């Protein structure tokens, strides 16, 4: 009997003539969203395969030992956005994930002073008071306002955005819910919200505070991963994006994944495997195979083919539509929209192994402030100048750094008494004056950052045992993020909600039947959140008319 027509539909020939299995679904990319998506599909009983280009899983959610006995969270480094509903539902704690909250934070000032962001509210009040009594009090108004905005967005994280042009009952219902959430804010609240979603983080903070260093300390969240400056419209939302997560119900709190961010992907992978899913690494997808307008599987660069009627891409929209799909398989508007998708790279990162805990000027060596995010930009003006360099095609000479020492919290990432430092850097352009980065550029960029830290820590440079320097070039080449954009696409209003990645395709379905998207390039966007992956799984299961396995959001009151 010709096996091509054999009754066991699961059997097919691969190009080499070997019999390969046909899967129910293939997920391209073992980023945390791909793994989440696959886990939910497997949980519903589907036979799922994840194909990952790298020899390790996780994408930008990864732990790597690049210096012996040191674990680096070498892309993402802190955790807050990860949906607790998903963590619990996929039993990630049982599979080894623990997220440990931290507090503290400092912005070092050029004049030798500093702003210490104490975890205790009263202690923080006194610290702000030192800079401005009025700001100390205004901080409460600021907190309440940010909380209002997070309460608006959080219920939509685990929902598929409605298509505003659709007349389907489900879309109308979801649109009505969205409208209700907005109207509940009242007329003034609504006006504030619209302003908030479009204004700059600089303007937003200036409506609360007068102290430069306080504004600068808070403004960082508005530009992380973003090719915009503190005075660019839209950056207030990016700040919100960093406040909308929580650790155990404390909205806006952040934590470290014990063992590095790879613990998130490792737990997701174990959960997926517990549901019977498979992962193949070192499997570089060349193309999503399409026949008669339907996805049929994936072809790897090495010629291997895997077959399935459902193919899900965890890649960013540009890679998905311009790289691993044939233009001839796509409607013209999708190709155009993918080409116009905004995904500019703007960040770099240093991961540093330290022989001991560095001391910082003006900070007690045992200060709990160091158990948080540390920065060196003490005014909005300096932040804006850092952006000016990026616009001019160079990395910032005076960069914004989001620097943390996870080993002050996590005992597993370095030998006792030694430390690991993660330094996220804004800004680094995808191209240097229009040309590719060279190794010399990378090293000079690394030196800029190390020098900046050294300016505030006399013993820092002497403690460095190893440093990994990553520019947009490395992020693109190693993680597969186009231009090194950390969110798989910019988080501006034109690319959020029903516009993410582009209008008409915001419900995780691609233009080809059986083809879906599940990465950070879809709603609700970037960050280690697992929501895009879960939301996409819910849509796929709906199309397959299978029972939903994806949990709804906790009531957020």
């Amino acid at each position, binding site marked *: 009997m010709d096996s091509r027509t054999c009754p066991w539909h699961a059997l097919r020939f691969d190009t080499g003539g070997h019999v390969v299995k046909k899967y129910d679904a293939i997920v391209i990319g073992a980023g945390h969203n791909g793994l989440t998506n696959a886990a939910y599909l497997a949980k519903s009983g589907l036979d799922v395969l994840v194909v990952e280009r790298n020899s390790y899983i996780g994408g930008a959610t990864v732990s790597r030992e690049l210096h012996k006995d040191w674990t680096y969270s070498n892309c993402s480094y802190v955790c807050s956005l990860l949906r*607790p509903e998903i*963590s*619990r539902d996929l039993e*990630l*704690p049982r599979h080894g994930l*623990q997220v*440990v*909250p931290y*507090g503290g934070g400092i912005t070092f000032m050029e004049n030798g002073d500093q702003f210490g962001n104490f*975890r*205790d509210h009263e202690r923080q009040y006194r610290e702000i008071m030192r800079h401005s009594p009025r700001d100390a009090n205004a901080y409460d108004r600021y907190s309440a306002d940010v909380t209002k905005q997070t309460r608006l967005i959080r219920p939509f994280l685990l929902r598929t955005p409605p298509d505003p042009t659709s007349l389907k009952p489900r879309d109308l219902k979801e649109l009505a819910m969205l409208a209700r959430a907005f109207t509940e804010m009242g007329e003034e609240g609504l006006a504030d919200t619209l302003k908030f979603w479009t204004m700059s983080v600089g303007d937003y903070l200036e409506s609360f505070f007068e102290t430069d260093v306080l504004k600068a300390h808070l403004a960082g969240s508005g530009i992380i991963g973003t090719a915009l400056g503190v005075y660019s419209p839209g950056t207030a939302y990016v700040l919100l994006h960093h406040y909308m997560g929580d*650790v*155990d*119900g*404390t909205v806006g709190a952040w934590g470290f994944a*014990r063992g590095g961010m790879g613990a998130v992907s490792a737990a997701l992978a174990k959960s997926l495997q517990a549901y019977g899913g498979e992962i193949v690494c070192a499997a570089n997808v060349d193309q999503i195979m399409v026949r008669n307008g339907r996805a049929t599987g994936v072809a790897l660069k090495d010629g291997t083919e895997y077959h399935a009627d459902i193919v899900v891409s965890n890649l960013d929209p540009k890679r998905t539509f311009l790289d691993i799909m044939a233009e001839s398989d796509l409607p013209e508007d999708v190709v155009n929209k993918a080409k116009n998708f905004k995904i500019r790279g703007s960040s770099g990162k240093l991961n540093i192994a330290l022989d001991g805990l560095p001391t910082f000027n003006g900070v007690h060596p045992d200060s*709990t402030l160091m158990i948080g995010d540390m920065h060196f930009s003490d005014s909005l003006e300096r932040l804006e100048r850092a952006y000016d360099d990026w616009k001019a095609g160079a990395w910032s000479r005076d960069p914004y750094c989001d620097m943390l020492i996870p080993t*002050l*919290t*996590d*005992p*597993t990432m370095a030998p*006792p*008494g030694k430390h690991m430092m993660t330094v996220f850097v804004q800004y680094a352009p995808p191209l240097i004056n229009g040309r590719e980065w060279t190794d010399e550029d990378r090293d000079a960029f690394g030196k800029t950052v190390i020098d900046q830290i050294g300016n505030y820590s006399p013993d820092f440079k002497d403690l460095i045992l190893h440093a990994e320097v990553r520019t947009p070039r490395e992020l693109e080449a190693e993680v597969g993020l186009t231009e090194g954009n950390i969110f798989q696409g910019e988080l501006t209003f034109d690319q959020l909600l029903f516009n993410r990645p582009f209008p008409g395709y915001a419900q995780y379905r691609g233009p080809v039947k059986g083809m879906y998207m599940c990465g950070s390039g879809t709603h609700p966007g970037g960050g280690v959140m697992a929501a895009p992956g879960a939301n996409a799984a819910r849509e796929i299961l709906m199309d397959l008319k299978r029972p939903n396995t994806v949990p709804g959001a*906790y*009531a957020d*009151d």
Partner: protein
Amino acid sequence: MSEYRDETMMLKTPFHSRVEAANELNEWDGWSGYTTPVAYTDVELEYFAIRNSTGVFDLSPMTKYRISGPDAEAYLNRLVTRDVSKIKIDRVGYVIWCDDEGQMMDDGTLFHLGKNDYRLCSYTRVMDWMSWAAMGFDVRIVDETSEVAALAVQGPTSCACLSAMGLTGLEELKPFGIKRFTFADTELMVSRTGFTGDLGYELWIEPQHAEALWDQLFAAGKHYMIKPIGSSALDLARIETGFLQAGVDFVPAQDTVRIGRSRSPFELGLSWLVDFEKPVFNGRKALLKESVEGSSYRLVFLDVEGNKPAANSFILVGPEQVGTVTSAAWCPTAKSNFAFAQVEAKYAEVGRELIAEIYYQRELHWTRLLAKCTVVAAAPFNPPRRRQTPAPMC
């Protein structure tokens, strides 16, 4: 003029000078007449010290009895429900004891220190009952609560901290084992025990060496993120791992006034501690009868839907109230919403769905929530490191 002097109302533990210095929040509570900290700096971070590095809890106020004499083992076998002869020297056993009606008086840890030499640690005071029960036995019972200072050192780096302090070979100590070290020319006894469900140890020493022990421990533990913890963090950890607390999850039988308010070990899910192979022990007859006839209540573990802790909730089946929650928490490591409840025995089977009536308040607005919950067999936190020997270092 007559001179009248009295002691201060609250006592201080042998670690007080250090505890006080570390207690930045200045939040205090009382425990058996001693001043003890509720929290030092931040309950959440203290809880995570237990689960991620090392948390240190001053255990000194714990009631401790020394029970010795030729009949000590025989006596204890009469007192508690499990077979004490199976607890070897240098081992610790978790024990419970009941009144003659088979109602639970308390639970505790029994340290077998030498031949016919034991220490019983308990939450409640038991001198009266133990003295009654001692009739006819040749034993000496001494309350040594104030003569022994104790610290619980709990968490994944606890073995590393103590090893760094010079307690070599500690990693080989099995759960519920006892090992003795020399510290400042005196004996430091270490047991691999605790109330957190994690890797952890308890340290026992003469009070005059307490401060030195604290200082050395914290110096050695610095690189392992050692932190003092208060009672709030400990309470969260014990709920997450399913440990009962006398006075919270059951009323010690001797304290009950109203009929039907005490509970038996069966009702509290502790039947594994009742050994009917033993011919006599206090409460045996009543317990035997209950084991045949069935119990009225059952303490169950509940996995509660959503993220609102079911503290003090009524448990419902349809409109009918069938139980109440005794302990509840959102568990930060297990990431689950967990509760202990007393329910009518017929609603207690694993897998059974019940409803918790939860009340919570936001900005002075109360909401009533009927949350689905499921009876589960075990508490959500039970890591392998709790049992591993050699003990892991992080």
